[in-house]
């Protein structure tokens, strides 16, 4: 909307402390969605450099998996994907008109479940690099 003067961040993200559950769910859903798209393209780009043969593929993957950062990013990717899936189910329910009164609780639930799954996955992802 046109403004006669700039109220600055007052109107948008400057108020992040006052955002409600539904707003946070929306922001996280957008964010995780873009992250997954970013990952998809990186995934294709990286693996397409390793299609010269079996040996090249194995070398590339072993080289990547040996890096601590890559392991860390994998945990992050899992967290992002799990949240996006759970919140996606929540949004599906909202679209079907089920449990609209509990929309904030389902958001908190998907956050907690995401956290739990991420923590539980750490030992699996971090074997041989610190664990």
């Amino acid at each position, binding site marked *: *909307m*046109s*403004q*006669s*003067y700039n*109220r600055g961040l*007052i*109107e*948008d993200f400057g*108020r992040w*402390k*006052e955002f*409600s*559950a*539904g*707003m946070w*769910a*929306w922001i996280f859903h957008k964010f995780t969605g873009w992250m997954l798209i970013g990952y998809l393209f990186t995934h294709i780009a990286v693996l397409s450099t390793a299609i010269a043969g079996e040996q090249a593929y194995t070398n590339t993957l072993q080289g990547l998996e040996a890096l601590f950062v890559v392991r860390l990013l994998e945990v992050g990717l899992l967290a992002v994907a799990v949240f996006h899936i759970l919140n996606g189910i929540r*949004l599906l329910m*909202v*679209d079907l*008109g089920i449990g*609209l009164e509990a*929309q*904030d609780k389902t958001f908190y639930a998907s956050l907690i479940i995401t956290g739990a799954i991420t923590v539980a996955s750490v030992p699996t992802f971090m074997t041989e690099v610190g664990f």
Partner: protein
Amino acid sequence: MSTQQQQPEEPETQESPVEGEPETESAPEPQQRRLERKRLGQAQREQAEAETEPEETKIHLKVFRYDPEVEAKQEPRFDDYYVPYERGMTVLDALIYARDEFDSSLTFRHSCRQAICGSDAFFVNGSQHLGCKTQLSELEQPVRIEPLPHQEVIKDLVVDMEHFYDQMHSVEPYMKQEDLPDGDLEEFRQSRENREKIKMSTRCIWCGACMSSCNIAAGDNQYLGPAAINKAYRFAMDEREDEEIKEHRLRIIEQEHGVWRCQTQFSCTEVCPKDIPLTEHIQELKREAVKKNLKFW
């Protein structure tokens, strides 16, 4: 405020002769008892009040000020007011006090003061509230009062509602049914179930709080907004209108900037002072629009 609390005694004396009429003999006794109870209650109330409240509490208001017509006031600023608190005081009461006692140039819209006219939606402590319906006792101090976000400020707390009204009118918010029941005095009846279905959506007071809270409406000027879609819901779901009219209404709301812009943030539902389940209504219209367009035969 203090005058209001003394009022109960006055109507009592006026009522007594009328109430006593049917049974003149036994009348004094129940009336005496009632008066006695009333006096006791009054005394208790006053005592409770004295205990819970310190004599002179002041509410700290921070009010947004801006006036494009006065050169020195073109830069937006916040003014502080310290308003003496009284039990039951609302945000609007405090603003009226500040205007009457401190600064008569403080400008804001208000009319009925009972959450019906929808003039006094403000941005209070970071979310949209109806000034006359928001108790100061429920707010943290200092109470920060700003005009509604995402609308052009005309002066102080007054925002330009023109765009909001345009969106409201664009969904044709009136009964379009032309085939009325025969007979001059015939009622146009609606089933109880149907009335229940649209009940909440009829409560809209056009205050604009939902539109102001909506992140999508802020970025997309053509988006109808929660209030207008709710208005469309109110008529589209009304069974008294013919099927063709309903289809016409669905055509309006299923356009690119209609219901599909809603991304279910629930901001509007959260701020609506009339507790209208706006998101639910928008979602239901989305389903109706899909149903209308899906044909498997």
